[in-house]
C-alpha cells in the first residue's frame, strides 16, 4: 500500500489528576491546540476518528455536532492504549485513499474523574464473561494491572529475573520525565524508593503502575499536498502494521508466556512482528527511539522482545545496562517519561512526543539527530515516523 500520510498538527492538554474538566472540554481543547500547531482552519478537518469507551472519551456524533465539525469520514474505536496505532492507521489509510483530507484523531480520557481504573469504577469489567483485560470480578481479579502481574510472574520464573531487575524500567522512565516540564511524576525515583514501595498486585509495585490521569490529545493526519501548507514541520508516517489478535495474544503479555490462554513456548518475533522493518526498508539500528504503551513496567520488556531489539529473556539486562535511557542509550524508550511518569493519555501523549522529537523541539530530552522513531506495543502493532 502506498501511504501518503503526515502528521501536520499535534495538540495535547495538560495532564491532570484533579478531574476538573469534562472529557468534551478536554477533547475540544486538544483540537484547538492541534489546529493552532498546524495552522489549519477548523473547516479543513473533514475526517474524525475518536477513541471511545472505558474510561468514557468523546464519541464522533456528539463531538462533531457540538464542535461544528463537518466530516465525510468518521469512525471510532474502543478507548484503550492498544488502539493508538489502529486509530492512526485508519486515519492514514483514509487520507492516503482520498476519503478525507484532514483527519482529526481525538482521544480524551477521564481516569482521574472516575477515581481509577479497574474494579467497579471501570465499565470494561462487565463487557463479557471475561473483560477485555481478562477480568474476573468474582475472584477479585481486576483489570488491567493483574494481567501484567500474572504475565510477568511467568516471565520472571521463566527467565530467572525479579523485581530488582524490573525496577530499572520505572527508574529510567522517571529520569526521562525529570527532563520534561509537562510530566506529572518528576521527583527522583531510587532503587530504595522502589523496593520500599507497596505492592499493588504482587509482583508489581506501585511504581510499576502508571497514574490515572485526565487529559486529551488531538493528532491531525493529512496527505502530502495538504501537509505542505502546515505551519510547523510535518512528520511522515512511513510504515504501519496492525494489532494482533487470537489465542496467543493477551493484552498485557507477549506471546509465549502462557498468560491466560496463550501457549507457553520459546518466543521468537515472527514475520508479522518484523514486517514494519521489512516494508520500510529500515532496520533496528536505524530507529532512533522507541515509544510504547507502558501502563505497567513489564510491557516495556515485552515490547523490546516482540520487535527483536533483544532476545527473549534479555530485555531485563538490556534495560538495566542503560540501553533505553536518554543518557547514552542505543534506543531511548518513551523519552517523555511514558505513561509511568509523564501521565496516562492512553499513549497518545507519546505520539505528541514523537512529533516534537522529530521537529527537534524537546530541549534537554531531545534525541540527537532523531530521524526515525517507532511506535510499537507488546500487542504487535507499530508505526514508523520520520521527519521530512
Amino acid at each position, binding site marked *: 500500500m502506498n501511504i501518503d500520510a503526515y502528521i501536520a498538527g499535534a495538540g495535547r492538554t495538560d495532564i491532570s489528576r484533579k478531574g476538573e474538566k469534562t472529557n468534551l472540554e478536554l477533547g475540544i481543547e486538544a483540537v484547538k491546540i492541534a489546529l493552532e500547531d498546524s495552522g489549519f482552519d477548523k473547516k479543513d478537518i473533514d475526517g474524525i476518528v475518536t477513541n471511545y469507551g472505558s474510561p468514557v472519551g468523546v464519541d464522533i456524533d456528539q463531538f462533531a455536532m457540538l464542535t461544528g465539525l463537518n466530516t465525510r469520514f468518521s469512525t471510532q474505536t474502543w478507548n484503550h492504549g492498544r488502539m493508538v496505532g489502529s486509530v492512526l492507521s485508519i486515519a492514514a489509510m483514509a487520507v492516503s485513499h482520498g476519503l478525507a483530507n484532514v483527519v482529526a484523531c481525538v482521544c480524551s480520557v477521564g481516569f482521574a474523574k472516575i477515581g*481509577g481504573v*479497574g*474494579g*467497579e469504577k471501570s465499565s470494561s469489567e*462487565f463487557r*463479557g*464473561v*471475561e473483560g477485555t483485560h*481478562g477480568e*474476573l*470480578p*468474582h*475472584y*477479585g*481479579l*481486576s483489570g488491567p494491572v*493483574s494481567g501484567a*502481574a*500474572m*504475565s510477568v*510472574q*511467568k516471565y520472571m*520464573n521463566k527467565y530467572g529475573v525479579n523485581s530488582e531487575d524490573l525496577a530499572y524500567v520505572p527508574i529510567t522512565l522517571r529520569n526521562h520525565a525529570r527532563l520534561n516540564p509537562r510530566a506529572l511524576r518528576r521527583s527522583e525515583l531510587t532503587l530504595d524508593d522502589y523496593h520500599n514501595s*507497596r*505492592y*499493588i*498486585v*504482587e*509482583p508489581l509495585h506501585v511504581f510499576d503502575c502508571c497514574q490515572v490521569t485526565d487529559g486529551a490529545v488531538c493528532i491531525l493526519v493529512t496527505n502530502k499536498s495538504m501537509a505542505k501548507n502546515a505551519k510547523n514541520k510535518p512528520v511522515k508516517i512511513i510504515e504501519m502494521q496492525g494489532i494482533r489478535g487470537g*489465542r496467543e495474544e493477551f493484552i498485557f503479555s507477549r506471546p509465549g508466556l*502462557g*498468560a*491466560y*490462554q496463550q501457549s*507457553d513456548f520459546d518466543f521468537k518475533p515472527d514475520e508479522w512482528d518484523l514486517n514494519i522493518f521489512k516494508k520500510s526498508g529500515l532496520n533496528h539500528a536505524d530507529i532512533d527511539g522507541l515509544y510504547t504503551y507502558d501502563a505497567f513496567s513489564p510491557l516495556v520488556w515485552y515490547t523490546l522482545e516482540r520487535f527483536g531489539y533483544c532476545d527473549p529473556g534479555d530485555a531485563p539486562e538490556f534495560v538495566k545496562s542503560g540501553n533505553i535511557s536518554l543518557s547514552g542509550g542505543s534506543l531511548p524508550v518513551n523519552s517523555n517519561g511514558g505513561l509511568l511518569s509523564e501521565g496516562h493519555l492512553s499513549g497518545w501523549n507519546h505520539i505528541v512526543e514523537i512529533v516534537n522529537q522529530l521537529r527537534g523541539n524537546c530541549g534537554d530530552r531531545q534525541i540527537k539527530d532523531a530521524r526515525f522513531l517507532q511506535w510499537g506495543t507488546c500487542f504487535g502493532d507499530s508505526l514508523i515516523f520520520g521527519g521530512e
Partner: protein
Amino acid sequence: MVNRPLPVINQDNRWHWEKLKEGIFVIQECAGCKTRRWPIAPVCYHCFSKEVELIQCEGIGTIDSWVVFHHSYYPYFADKLPYIVVQVKLAEGIRVTANLLNIDPSEVKIGMSVRLTYQQVLNSDVILPQFVPY
C-alpha cells in the same frame, strides 16, 4: 454487608454453572478433532465444529502463574487483602483462573499442586470453583 461480585452467567455458559451446583467441573471437548477448550465457547477454536462432548475434570492441576492483590478494587474484597489469584493447568489440559485458598501468599510457587474445591457464594445460588493446595 457487601456481596461478592457474581460471575456473568449467560446463554453460552449456563450449563457449566448448573453442573457446578452438583460439585462437578465440566469442560468441552470437540467431538470432531478432540481439542479441549476453555473458556466455554459455542464452537471449537481449532476446527470450528459445534459438536461437543462434555468432560468431567478430576480437579487436579498445577499452578502456572499467580498474583497477590494488596490493593482493593472491589468493596467485597477490601477486608480480604491480601488474597491470591492463580492460573492453574488442570490435568485435563486446560488453564483456568480462580482464587487459591488456605495458604499463606509467601508459600505459593509456580508448579505447585492444587485441587479444585467448591465454594458457595453467600446470598446467591452460585457455586464458585476455587483451588486449595493438594
